[in-house]
Each structure stands twice: as structure tokens, then as C-alpha cells.
């Protein structure tokens, strides 16, 4: 494995901008790495080496011509296949969109291109972002670089695996119920769900519109911050995007500090169902934070226990409507014969996987006349109560913490046909999605019983994303010092090429 692939995005960006290395070299090194390991990791659905090298060569040309370079110039970024990128397919992990080439670019990827990033490939995901393992992908699951028999988390599992396997230093994901934070935690990397509305959803195929949040993956807190800053900001093409300056996340990532910070442990996120090793590491992290000068207390958020059922009403309701457009009439798969109605039904039955079908029907049920008030309507009221719990908590503390997910990576196949068990992976992450808060998962060590990574989730009020980075950077620095090396170097799962 080339040294270039172990460098951070920050290091690569600096080296490219001074001309110390060429963007083409960087991209070639990562393409080689992908070729060497992706047959086992299966992080990527589409890689177009020619296209990636062309992007890189363009960066080199601009640097040679003395043109100004963007903050991520020459840095490879893996892109979840949920984003529309011109010139590459966007399957959303689904057979129903197999072979679809979007005729327009998402705002977020356009911003990354403007920043000089090299979009190196589209990554695997649970179908239409529904799942916690990539096992719901229409094209087979991705594998956790720590242990190839384990899941990389989901739905942005491909992106997390790519970063953890050194196939790219940065990756884009989306987080609707935890789909960035949970994969980050089980892959031992950093993943962030920015404030909802903090970056644009234009060109991000919709799962649950009021919850979907594009966000960054990186191996370090600073790397995640660099990507966060480059992708974020108001977009007039997205009515739900916030017209406010991007919080100073890079600045915060460079100055990790928790002295005097008031930190609240969510008391509801522990106990039964939480893997002991996860709690052990979490407790250690709490002790670390206290030793760094934070004031840690316990805070109860009594309605958080209803977050999971509320989410599994709101998200399916929105997705049942969002996915109605996939009917074989205008793009994507068309199968079956007879009338338009018959072709639509046959196409959707053939093109969608089981989890998608379950959630579509659940959403249809929850929105039906006669059921709306008791299900969807009630869930939206619970959402209000959860927001109030957060408001109450944040009036007492600056950030909240919890494990990001109750267990380490589970086996591929273990929960695949047990939806309820699968849903439990999102227990700790969902409340932030319902409230639109910012949240991060940062690696804090390996669970003793299985040697698999576990993380610390930090949650902050909306638009206080920088606070996350300040805490995470402090944690990362302290732990890395304690370990003597970055956590990922302990990953035994991949034979290094």
C-alpha cells in the first residue's frame, strides 16, 4: 500500500497545493488501493479510473497555471451512490435505478468539484438509505475492513468502509437515522451528521425529506471538518436549507478543548441491549473528558425512548411518498406487461428489496385516512416532545454524549431478516435526526470482547456544529496520544497490499 493512501486529507491537500506531489499521483495511488482491496471490501459500486485521473490532471493543470486552488484540491473523495453526479451512475443501492445516469449534479458534489476534490467513485449503500449494514443493497453488502465477515454499518456503509480501508481519505454519506454516525462508529473512523439544513439536499435522492442530512466521513476529526466546510452552506435550490454562515468547524477541529465545558450523558442510552465492551469504552471516554477539564453530569431525556417508534413512522411515511416516482415510466427499470398500472406494480415489485417494500407499506398505512392521527400525527407530536427534551438538556449542558450505537459491528447475515433487531442499531442516533441537531461519532477504542471499534457520540444544538469538533478533536488527540498511534492501524481485517 502506497504511503499516499495513509496520509490524511489535510496532508494531501497541503502537499498538492505546494506541488510536492501531483494530484494525479495521489489519485493513482488510491485507484491502485481500490484495485487491490475492493474485491474484498466491496465499498464501491462504480469507479471510473479515467474520469478520476482526468479530474486530477485538471487540478495539476490549474496549479501549474498559477490558478487558485480550492481547499480540497487533489484530494480523493468517495461519494455515496445516493448523490446525483453527472457522468456516473446513481443507483441509490437499488436495482430499480440500475444503469441510471442522472442528467444533473447535486449541489454538494458540485461544491466539492469547485473545491478541487477528485470524486473517485460511488459507494455502496443500503437501498435508498434504508438500513444499518448495507445488506439491503441491491448489489450485495460491503464488508468491514476490521473484519470482513462483519458489516460496515449503514446505510452509508460503503463510504465508511472505503475510508477505513484507505481507499479514499474522505467520503460523503447521508444521515437520516444514524446512517453516517453508526457506520463511522463500527468502522473506527469519524462521521458527522451536520445540522439539518446546514447543507443542501438538492441532488440527494430523498429518503425521509425532513430528516436526511448529507455529511462527511474522515479518518481524523480535522479531515471531517475540511469536508464539512467545503460541502456546506445555504442553497436556494433547497427550500429547507438554512441561510446562515457555516459554523467554524475547521477552526474548532484545530483547537480541540473541553476545559469548562458542561457535558451531559443521556441516561436513557445505556443498560439492556448495550454491549458491555461498548459501555466500558464509553465510561473510559467519560473519564477522559473529565480529566481534560469537562464537567460531566447525567441528563434524562424521557421522551427519547419513543424516538425509535416515532422515527419508524415518520421516515416510512415520507419515503412511501418519495419513492412513488419509481414506476418505470420515465427512468430506471421497467418490467412486466399490460397496462401502465400493471407495469408500475411489477416494476416496483421487481426493483425494490424487502426492506424498502416493508417501509413503503408501513408509510402507506401510517398516512391512511383513519390511521393518520394515531400514527403519523402522533409521531410528529412525539417529535415535538423530543425537541423539548433537547432544549431542556441544552439549557443545562453544552453538549450531550452517548454511545453512537449499542453494539460493535455484527456479522453479515446476523440481522438481515430481522427488521426489528436491525432497527435497534439506530437507537442512540435517531433523536438528533428528529430534532435536526448536529452530532458526531469519534473513535474511542476497541471493545475488549471482540476487538472491534466503538465510538463516542457527541450531540450539539442546531448550528453549533463547531462544538462537536472541538470536543471530538480533544478526545481524538488525547486517545491517540494514549494509544501511541491512530486506532485504524490496529485493523487486522485487511491484507495490506
Amino acid at each position: 500500500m502506497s504511503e499516499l493512501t495513509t496520509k490524511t486529507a489535510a496532508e494531501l491537500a497541503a502537499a498538492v497545493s505546494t506541488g510536492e506531489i501531483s494530484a494525479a499521483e495521489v489519485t493513482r495511488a488510491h485507484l491502485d488501493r481500490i484495485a487491490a482491496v475492493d474485491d474484498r471490501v466491496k465499498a464501491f459500486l462504480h469507479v471510473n479510473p479515467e474520469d478520476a485521473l482526468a479530474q486530477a490532471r485538471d487540478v495539476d493543470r490549474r496549479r501549474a497555471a498559477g490558478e487558485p486552488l480550492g481547499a480540497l484540491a487533489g484530494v480523493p473523495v468517495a461519494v455515496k451512490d445516493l448523490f446525483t453526479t453527472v457522468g456516473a451512475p446513481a443507483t441509490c443501492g437499488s436495482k430499480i435505478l440500475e444503469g441510471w445516469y442522472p442528467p444533473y449534479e447535486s449541489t454538494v458534489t458540485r461544491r466539492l468539484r469547485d473545491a478541487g476534490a477528485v470524486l473517485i467513485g460511488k459507494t455502496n449503500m443500503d437501498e435508498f438509505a434504508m438500513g444499518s449494514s448495507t445488506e439491503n443493497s441491491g448489489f450485495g453488502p460491503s464488508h468491514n475492513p476490521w473484519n470482513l465477515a462483519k458489516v460496515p454499518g449503514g446505510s452509508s456503509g460503503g463510504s465508511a468502509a472505503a475510508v477505513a480501508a484507505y481507499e479514499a481519505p474522505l467520503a460523503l454519506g447521508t444521515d437520516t437515522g444514524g446512517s453516517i454516525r453508526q457506520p463511522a462508529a463500527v468502522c473506527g473512523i469519524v462521521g458527522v451528521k451536520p445540522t439539518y439544513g446546514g447543507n443542501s439536499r438538492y441532488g440527494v435522492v430523498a429518503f425521509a425529506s425532513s430528516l436526511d442530512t448529507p455529511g462527511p466521513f474522515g479518518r481524523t476529526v480535522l479531515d471531517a471538518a475540511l469536508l464539512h466546510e467545503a460541502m456546506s452552506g445555504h442553497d436556494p435550490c433547497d427550500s429547507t436549507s438554512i441561510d446562515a454562515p457555516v459554523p467554524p468547524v475547521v477552526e474548532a477541529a484545530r483547537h480541540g478543548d473541553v476545559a469548562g465545558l458542561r457535558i451531559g450523558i443521556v441516561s436513557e442510552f445505556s443498560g439492556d441491549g448495550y454491549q458491555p465492551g461498548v459501555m466500558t469504552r464509553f465510561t473510559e471516554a467519560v473519564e477522559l473528558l473529565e480529566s481534560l477539564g469537562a464537567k460531566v453530569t447525567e441528563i434524562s431525556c424521557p421522551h427519547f425512548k419513543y424516538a425509535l417508534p416515532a422515527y419508524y413512522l415518520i421516515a416510512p411515511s415520507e419515503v412511501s411518498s418519495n419513492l412513488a416516482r419509481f414506476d418505470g415510466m420515465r427512468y430506471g427499470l421497467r418490467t412486466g406487461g399490460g397496462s401502465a398500472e400493471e407495469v408500475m406494480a411489477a416494476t416496483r415489485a421487481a426493483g425494490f428489496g424487502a426492506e424498502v417494500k416493508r417501509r413503503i407499506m408501513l408509510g402507506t398505512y401510517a398516512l391512511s385516512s383513519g390511521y393518520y392521527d394515531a400514527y403519523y400525527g402522533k409521531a410528529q407530536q412525539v417529535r415535538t416532545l423530543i425537541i423539548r427534551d433537547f432544549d431542556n438538556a441544552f439549557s443545562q449542558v453544552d453538549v450531550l454524549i452517548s454511545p453512537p450505537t449499542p453494539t460493535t459491528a455484527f456479522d453479515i447475515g446476523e440481522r438481515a431478516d430481522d427488521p426489528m433487531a436491525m432497527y435497534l442499531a439506530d437507537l442512540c442516533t435517531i433523536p438528533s435526526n428528529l430534532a435536526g441537531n448536529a452530532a458526531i461519532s469519534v473513535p474511542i477504542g476497541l471493545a475488549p470482547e471482540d476487538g472491534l471499534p466503538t465510538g463516542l457520540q457527541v450531540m450539539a444544538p442546531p448550528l453549533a456544529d463547531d462544538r462537536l469538533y472541538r470536543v471530538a478533536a480533544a478526545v481524538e488527540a488525547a486517545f491517540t496520544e494514549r494509544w501511541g498511534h491512530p486506532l485504524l492501524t490496529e485493523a487486522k481485517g485487511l491484507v495490506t497490499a
Partner: protein
Amino acid sequence: MPITRDEVAHLARLSRLALSDEELDHLAPQLDQIIASVAQVQEVAADGIEPTTHATGLTNVFRADEPVSCLTPEQALSGAPAVELQRFKVPRILVEE
């Protein structure tokens, strides 16, 4: 309140999903279990609580009535399974709306 296999079949029809009998046999009990679980929200006392549809609190987001360049017909039709006369060709529609 449990959901029957027939009701699940009805939901499938409403959602334009032509599920096979095997699929129905498999999905119906799972759906029943999930519905029973999400019904927990009904335990929450929420009288007088406003529902939240948007966390951001934004209102009045508009665009000006000015043209923006659009797709060419080739781009618009680029993914279409069938095209005729520069239109999307779709199978015969049974019921008029």
C-alpha cells in the same frame, strides 16, 4: 390492533407493489410486528402538543419569477425506457383520473 394478511395485500396494491404470495406470507407478519411496536407512540400523552413537521422553523422561502435554464429534451428523455415523438411512451392507462 393486529394487521391481517388481507390488509397487507391491500397496502401493497395501494403502493403499486405486485407482491407474490410468498412475499406476502413473509412480509405480513413482519409488518404486523413493526406496526405493533411503532404503536408505542400512542402511549405518549400529547394533548395540546403541536406536531413538528420541520425542525428548522423556517418560513417564506421563495424564488423570484425568473427563468432558469432547463434541460434539453434529450437530457429529459435520457433515462426513458421508451420514447416516441419526443414524449415518454407509457403503456395504456386503465383508469382516467
